[in-house]
């Protein structure tokens, strides 16, 4: 019997894998996607339960090391001040993301030319813009047109409601004359493509029980599967294999029953993001690629970028109804996004406003003396509950080769596959940027009326954005893939996730990851007959 050969194997069913699968489905090629997690059930999400706040600290927490689901793989991040956050399921980390959905700025693609640091991307904002627009329709992006921080763009849906908390914070920015704008959010604020509208549950970051948040299990995947893409869940890819001709010829994976399987393919597309992708490429070392697949540049796993985050919180005299509404999406400020030579750092950052805490988190966060037990408990609690609002600060992280993903010599996942090890240092530029941002964050919260402020900088559990470890470029000695995500070394191998970012910008990367995946898929479709020449 002839061996089963797919036209395309996609590894990973998260943000990027879903987008590329959907886009390629129209070719009617035989497409198989292998995902190490399964489909999530909205009824299992914490907002269904009275203990919803605690669930976010345990089984629906951000760290794979604390969740320890079989679908997760462990990550040794002991040698990094920023800890890895991800999720493994159909939908990937979009299951737990906040759905804050900004684009990169035009200047983010020209960092070297404009600011003399890092490298320019091999494409520009204009080239990616049609795919941002396409992604907005598929993911259902809510927002408000007219943001002067960007070239014109049209949101698909009305902006996320600001509520009293948003109004209060916006006034602080207004008093200082700083930029602020309703966030672009991948949240269906009205019925969209079969998704029910957002009802302001609050804890988007533990999964959306309403199905309003644009996680790809409810956006791209239902359409892609309907169009014929075969999505195999609980299948963990161990390695990509290469034939004598130097082309990828398929993958070896462990199926749901723990059996090793082989899937041959004419084309392999990797969509495992900034940690999973280099891990897989390094685990795919062979006699032809002794340092890891597609790694003749030596850059696979190097230039790891997070976004150094800080958390700035203010407490206000009045209740703000902060438990209502999408936790991570209301307002964004890019007042300090672009480089200003007067500052002690290059590049910049965004402020993204957060809603307030629920009662359990308020109490727990007050344990360190702020909300004591005993007769003073209620008085102290009432000064804090529903009176906090704040922001996260997302700093641009510049690429540095000493920040790496390598293979841990001892740690393995449940299938015995070597796990990734993170080595990362915050740069002097990032530290100066964080200091500047925290000071400005406190300033704007006080302008908004906060009577007390506090900050945590850097924020340790903030390794949500994983970028740069298989970077794009035109020079095969200085990059892993070309301007279309195609490996310089293995011509039928494509990478479509955050690992191909050249620089990080200072915004959440998911929108750009997906726009890139659509852009690369478009290139594949247009050049099918000559793709591997």
């Amino acid at each position, binding site marked *: 019997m002839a061996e089963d050969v797919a036209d395309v194997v996609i590894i990973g069913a998260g943000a990027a894998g879903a987008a590329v699968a959907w886009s390629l489905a129209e070719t009617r090629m035989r497409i198989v996607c292998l995902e190490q997690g399964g489909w999530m059930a909205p009824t299992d*999400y914490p907002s269904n339960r009275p203990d919803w706040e605690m669930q976010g600290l345990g089984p629906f927490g951000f760290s794979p090391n604390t969740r320890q689901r079989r679908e997760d793989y462990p990550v040794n991040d002991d040698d990094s001040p920023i800890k890895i956050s991800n999720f493994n399921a159909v939908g990937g980390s979009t299951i737990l993301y906040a759905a804050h959905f900004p684009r990169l700025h035009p*200047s983010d*693609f020209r960092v070297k030319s404009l600011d003399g640091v890092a490298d320019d991307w091999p494409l520009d904002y204009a080239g990616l813009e049609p795919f941002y627009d396409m992604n907005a329709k598929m993911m259902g992006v809510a927002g408000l047109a007219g943001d*002067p921080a960007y070239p014109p763009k049209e949101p698909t849906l009305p902006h996320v409601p600001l509520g009293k908390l948003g109004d209060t914070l916006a006034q602080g920015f207004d008093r200082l004359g700083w930029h602020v*704008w*309703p966030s672009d959010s991948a949240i269906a604020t009205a019925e969209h493509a079969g998704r029910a509208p957002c009802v302001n549950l609050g804890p988007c970051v533990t999964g959306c*029980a309403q199905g309003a948040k644009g996680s790809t299990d409810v956006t791209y995947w239902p359409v892609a599967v309907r169009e014929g893409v075969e999505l195999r869940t609980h299948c963990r890819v161990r390695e990509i294999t290469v034939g004598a001709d130097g082309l990828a010829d398929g993958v070896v994976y462990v199926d749901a029953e723990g059996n090793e399987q082989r899937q041959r393919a004419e084309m392999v597309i990797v969509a495992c993001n900034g940690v999973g992708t280099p891990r897989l490429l390094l685990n795919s070392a062979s006699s032809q690629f002794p340092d890891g697949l597609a790694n003749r540049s030596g850059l696979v796993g190097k230039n790891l970028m997070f976004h150094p985050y800080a958390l700035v919180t203010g407490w206000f005299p009045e209740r703000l109804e902060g438990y209502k509404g999408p936790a991570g999406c209301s307002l964004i400020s890019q007042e300090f996004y*672009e480089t200003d030579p007067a500052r002690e750092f290059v590049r910049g950052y965004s402020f993204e406003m957060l809603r307030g805490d629920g009662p359990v988190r308020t109490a727990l966060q007050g344990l360190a003396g702020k909300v004591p037990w*005993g007769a003073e408990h209620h008085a102290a609690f009432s000064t804090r509950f529903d009176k906090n609002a704040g922001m996260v600060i997302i700093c641009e992280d510049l690429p540095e080769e000493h920040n790496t993903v390598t293979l841990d010599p001892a740690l393995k996942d449940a299938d015995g596959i070597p796990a990734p090890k993170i080595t990362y240092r915050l740069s002097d530029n990032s530290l100066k940027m964080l200091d500047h941002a925290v000071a400005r964050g406190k300033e704007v919260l006080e302008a908004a009326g906060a009577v007390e402020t506090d900050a945590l900088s850097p924020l340790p559990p903030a390794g949500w954005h994983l970028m740069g470890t298989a970077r794009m470029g035109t020079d095969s000695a200085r990059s892993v893939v070309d301007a279309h995500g195609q490996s310089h070394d293995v011509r039928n191998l494509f990478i479509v996730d955050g690992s191909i970012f050249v620089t990080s910008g200072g915004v959440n990367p998911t929108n750009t990851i997906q726009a890139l995946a659509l852009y690369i898929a478009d290139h594949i479709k247009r050049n099918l007959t000559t793709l591997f020449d």
Partner: protein
Amino acid sequence: MDDVLDAILETLIPASADGNMPSAGSLGIAGDVRRELAAFAALLESGVAAAEEAGFDSQSADERANCLRGFEATQPGFVPTVYMTLCTLYYRHPQVLVGLGLPARPPFPEGYPLEGGDLTVFEAVVARGPIFRAG
């Protein structure tokens, strides 16, 4: 023993002065505390026994508070462990949620109504003009 534990819980989170918030000891959650602290059963039972031995159930509120403060030396870890666990149980109890002015239910499916917001504040942002650099 649950009577003593209830008295401890009441000391940690008493009723509020205005009566809107119930005491933790009145909510019948001592069993939940025991369940949540199953991995720390020895610590819990040691503290409860020490309170009973100290005559906790016949003490005034101030005396009970002083007794628990004394546990910092004699029962290390007992009060912070029980207090933290209690907070996670107390603040999801329906009576407590109502006392806080919240609906006594999880967020889903009803959710919450939320105002769209005052968009006039953004007029000044637009008036200041574009702030992005061309690529």
